[in-house]
């Protein structure tokens, strides 16, 4: 896979060169830039922040284009929020899928909460991201997904691209979070209900008013809650802490899952990233979280060859926060997590 920042004119040429059944493309950019592209075999999502090899940038004029040359076939469809349980239907026998979902939409909420229970969700690699907008944009500016085959934009639902791979290739998906769990069991958090907000939590087994607890303890809510999913660390980021309305999150907390606070990073994000993230990102499709971009001070600073949009939520089978997701296509027998 190859990811590049291109002008709209360059991206349009690439789409035209491929034709309607050309090499599948995943494109991130501003609404204006995406709407200026011709129809073709691509899906797009609104994003204005990008991690490039030269450093993080905010760019509404250019688009970030990822080519997927190893795909032998593709199927693009828009899935309305009410039909999300059928998200995986139409997959190829050997393949992977890429999904885009607009932030703050019904589909965003439904996928985040119900997605892990969709039939066959974990059977093939599913990667994607939640589309966004400028951080200072008015709430009326809606994040979008755009179906390149028709040019239609959607502010809700999921846009999915199923991709077929040749028999000797397979997709490998992985996540990189720089945050470890705090070791203190007295500061474990569990929730009785699944949702994007909570008024109370059990902290070390004691029920507390969560907003009050976070405030009184001076918890740095730029750091996420971290759950251990059988060895995969899954972050949920704090969105707002309010004495009146409770605590909201950028992904749902799940009932029955134990969360710990994240330990602060020992080094600034770019240095910690370089220390923990090895390999060549140049052949991978990746996205990273807008909160890492903001809190990690990534504007103008590089995460090496791991490039991609800075997104309002990352998807590796399920919705994640403050995480880099990466996908690569490897030889079939090499399918093991590094």
């Amino acid at each position, binding site marked *: 896979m190859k990811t590049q920042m291109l002008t709209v004119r360059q991206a349009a040429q690439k789409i035209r060169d491929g034709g309607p059944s050309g090499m599948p493309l995943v494109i991130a950019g501003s609404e204006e830039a995406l709407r200026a592209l011709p129809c073709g075999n691509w899906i797009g999502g609104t994003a204005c922040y990008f991690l490039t090899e030269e450093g993080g940038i905010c760019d509404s004029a250019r688009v970030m284009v990822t080519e997927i040359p190893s795909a032998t076939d593709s199927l693009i469809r828009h899935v309305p929020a009410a039909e999300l349980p059928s998200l995986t239907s139409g997959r190829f026998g050997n393949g992977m899928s890429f999904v885009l979902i607009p932030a703050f939409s019904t589909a965003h909420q439904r996928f985040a909460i119900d997605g892990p229970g969709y039939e066959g969700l*974990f059977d093939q690699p599913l990667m994607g991201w939640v589309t966004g907008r400028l951080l200072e944009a008015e709430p009326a500016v809606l994040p979008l997904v755009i179906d390149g085959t028709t040019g239609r934009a959607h502010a809700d639902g999921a846009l999915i691209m199923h991709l077929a791979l040749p028999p000797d290739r397979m997709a490998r998906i992985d996540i990189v979070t720089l945050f470890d769990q705090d070791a203190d069991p007295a500061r474990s958090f569990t929730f009785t209900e699944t949702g994007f907000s909570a008024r109370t939590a059990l902290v070390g087994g004691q029920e507390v008013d969560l907003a009050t607890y976070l405030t009184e303890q001076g918890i740095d809510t730029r750091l996420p809650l971290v759950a251990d999913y*059988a060895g995969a660390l899954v972050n949920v980021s704090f969105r707002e802490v309010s004495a009146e309305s409770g605590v909201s999150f950028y992904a749902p907390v799940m009932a029955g899952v134990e969360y710990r606070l994240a330990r602060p990073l020992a080094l600034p994000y770019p240095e910690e990233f370089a220390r923990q993230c090895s390999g060549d990102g140049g052949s991978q499709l990746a996205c990273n979280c807008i909160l890492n971009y903001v809190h990690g001070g990534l504007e103008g600073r590089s995460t090496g060859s791991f490039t991609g949009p800075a997104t309002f939520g990352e998807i590796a089978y399920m919705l994640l926060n403050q995480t880099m997701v990466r996908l690569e296509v490897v030889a079939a027998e090499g399918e093991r997590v590094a």
Partner: protein
Amino acid sequence: MNIPSLYDPCWTVALLDSWRLEGCSLGTRMLVARLRVQVRNVPASMPEAVALLHGYFNTNPAVRDDLPDVIRRAA
């Protein structure tokens, strides 16, 4: 490695325990973790969870290498 039958107790053990699956693919780790939470919250859902996990390995040759890690303590 052959896939144990649906009725082999190894599946139940894998879902009742909490060992980490460091070497497994991301999808396997997430699925097992989700099913463990499910059966902890609703113990009666164990048969459904076992069927899902068994079906996952039965239909996905790509993740067969994960199987020994998932059922190792029950072996």
